[in-house]
């Protein structure tokens, strides 16, 4: 007896309501934009400069006392949050302190960190010094980091657009890229909505989502291309449905194994990379959805060349079989 996530020979009709699905995605994109514009992202110091200090104490953390202790130092905008994690020991109380970039200083000064340590230890005798970690990024670098990050995402999408265009047809490329942009926007949207810290690692996650979602889309498209040749007389709608149903089992298997691995990391991997893993989990779910309901729906909308018997220069250059 085999474990089956999807029963054999499914025959779902994915496109009877394709306008609805595209509409839903469009709506989510609008919501993401609105959230991004109204609320903005909770940028980490990578992107806005400043200092974060990770404190560890044997005493329970009282954010209020910490704040009061630091107020005397006149550091400007200070935010303090306690961190909870199942991997922490019983006497391990962790807090993150974020201090805005100080006037006239690129990176934080050693004396400032020392002062913070002294001030906090006065109210919390259980505080461990030196701090578990201190990270400081100057405004100059953070500006550049945002720029490079944005360029990286755009470059990745552009590279993919070109690759799919060369391997398939332009309609496929447009479908794939719309799906990617959809995934990226929705991920940024949820980060803005939930105010999860958005730092450099999240950009890496975004690019991985781009890679994963694409992976999914390409597998479906590959089958579509094959079936377009096989069923010359069927409607595009039908061909797409057949292709998605045929690959559905694989889609779910891969998503399931990837999610399994990611969830293990989310629960047990510690709080340092939790945001990063969250982005990827979200990306896998959204990416799977988008390769069926966005990429393929766009393909249906745009229509596609039906006669694949005469390959042109830009199409049909499938990789040769390996003859091992």
């Amino acid at each position, binding site marked *: 007896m085999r474990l089956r996530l999807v029963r054999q020979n499914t025959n779902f009709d994915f496109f009877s309501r394709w306008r609805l699905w595209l509409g839903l995605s469009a709506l989510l994109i609008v919501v993401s934009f609105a959230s991004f514009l109204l609320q903005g992202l909770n940028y980490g110091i990578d992107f806005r400069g400043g200092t974060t200090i990770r404190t560890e104490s044997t005493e329970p953390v009282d954010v209020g006392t910490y704040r009061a202790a630091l107020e005397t130092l006149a550091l400007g905008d200070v935010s303090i949050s306690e961190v909870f994690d199942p991997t922490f020991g019983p006497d391990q109380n962790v807090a993150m302190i974020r201090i805005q970039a100080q006037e006239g200083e690129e990176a934080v000064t*050693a004396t400032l960190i020392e002062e913070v340590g002294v001030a906090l230890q006065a109210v919390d005798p259980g505080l461990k010094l030196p*701090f578990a970690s201190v990270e400081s990024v100057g405004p100059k670098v953070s500006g550049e980091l945002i720029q490079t990050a944005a360029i990286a995402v755009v*470059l990745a999408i552009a590279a993919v657009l070109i690759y799919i265009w060369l391997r398939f047809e332009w309609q496929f490329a447009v479908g794939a890229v719309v799906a990617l942009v959809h995934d990226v926007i929705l991920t940024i949207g949820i980060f803005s909505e939930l105010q999860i810290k958005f730092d450099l690692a999240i950009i890496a996650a975004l690019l991985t989502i781009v890679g994963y979602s694409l992976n999914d889309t390409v597998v479906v498209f590959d089958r579509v291309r094959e079936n377009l040749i096989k069923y010359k007389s069927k409607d595009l709608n039908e061909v797409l449905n057949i292709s998605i149903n045929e690959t559905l089992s694989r889609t779910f298997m891969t998503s399931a194994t990837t999610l399994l*691995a990611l969830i293990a990391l989310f629960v047990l991997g510690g709080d340092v990379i939790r945001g990063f893993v969250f982005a990827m989990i979200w990306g896998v779910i959204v990416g799977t959805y988008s390769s069926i309901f966005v990429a393929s729906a766009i393909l249906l909308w745009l229509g596609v060349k039906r006669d694949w018997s005469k390959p042109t220069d830009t199409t049909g250059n499938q990789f040769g079989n390996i003859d091992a």
Partner: protein
Amino acid sequence: MLQIDAWKRITIWLTLLVGLTLAMPNAFYTRVETYNDAMQAIELGADTTENRDAASVWPDFLPSGLVNLGLDLRGGAHLLAEVQLDDVYAARMDSLWPDVRDVLRPERATVGTIRLQPSEPGTLRVRISEEAGMARALELVRGLAQPVVTLTGVGAQDLDVSGDGNDIIVQLSEEEKRATDERTMQQSLEIIRRRIDEVGTREPTIQRQGADRILIQVPGIGSAAELKEIIGTTAQLTFQPVIGRTSDENDAPGIGNELLPSMDEEGIFYILEQAPVVTGEELVDAQPSFDQNGRPAVNFRFNPSGARAFGDYTAQNIGNPFAIVLDEEVISAPTIQSHIPGGSGIITGNFTVEESTNLAVLLRAGALPAELSFLEERTIGPELGQDSIDAGKIATIIAFVGVLIFMALSYGLFGLFANVALILNIAMIFGLLSLVGATLTLPGIAGIVLTVGMAVDANVLVFERIREELKTAKGPARAIELGYEKALSAIIDANITTFITAVILYVMGSGPVRGFAITLGFGILTSVFTAIFVTRLLIVIWFERRRPKQIEV
């Protein structure tokens, strides 16, 4: 039919063997680390029995490459420094003034009086009283220029000399600036490396980034502040003529002079000539020592040209004070008692033993040609790093076991084949990482976990395809063959696109993100290899032995 040539089988087995051998040292991490440290010490000349013993814990014939642990896993300090390249232009112009004065002096009749004018740092402005002599003056000053020493700036001169009314304006030419920048960066890198080596720490990373930045990562160091103390001081030592002493910090020092505070005496300032007699660059040695009163001091020795300049100056200025200046602070300003010909001397001040030792280290390593400013700094405590490793390990194992069980349940025997491939896959990733000496970071662990999840994708694609083919094809052998054949283009397309994003991440990213890109990229390579070749080989071997009439995938 299902067949794999013998040479292909051998290649596959060999590749696996190499990968596993390369990965193996990581299973004995601390032991191999001890071995590597000992070997390095022996190579550097510390061939003691202790080191020999330490080296014997790991056999020499086995590979000893390890995956480096990133700062976020091991703890340590990370600094991104920006070299203030403009400083060097300014210093060059400051030291040019005496030369300009000297070439113009003999021509007083044509150019009139020569006076240094205040100017922006990096430009030299000299006023002559006779405008008619301008052409001659410009010609003379241009005579000071020298050809730029670069490959590209052929024929270019290092100085840009122009006239502006009665003023001669001298600047470094663009070509010279570029050449100077290059030199400054090389020197800074070299000096930072020497200073960190003097302190002796394991595997520091010192890398140039972009035009004017240097990335410094030192594992195991307590804090970024400590690291900054070692590399952040420029240690510019100069010996400058003293003009006067004052307690008013707003005193105008006069053009060509500067006002610098005293290191020991609060509120005392010295007026010094800006152009130094000798600089720390001419030092060949510096050692911590004690002066005749038993106070900590630093002994130093000049190279021949430095010794000559120092000797000449002391001979001509007996009875005058001169200042020993370190990083814009006057350490001391002794009066020259006699001609000092030997080129060696002693710096005394209010040092502690530690300070004098540090100063000697800094002087020996050489001065940084320009000041550093720090744009980014991160300190990660060793405990946090250990916590991250522990959490990452547990998460990876759970993820791994989960995927293994899931695959076995879904695909039975074929799932087991995929699982063997998956285990080999992880080993291969570690093998590759060790081979290139890559650094494993926390996001890198996430990359491996993600690979575990995604590596099965290629197998899933094939197995699903075989299932489909079983419905139509004639016999299991044909179904397996077709399954591999038809799934191939999807596997290749899907993995190339992911690989593209990994490459972009690597090129654009930095630090931990780069670590993630490396494991992701390697993961794609190894997972395609194990899925297409290894599982297939396993299936074929199984098929040849059993010759099943029907199969269930």
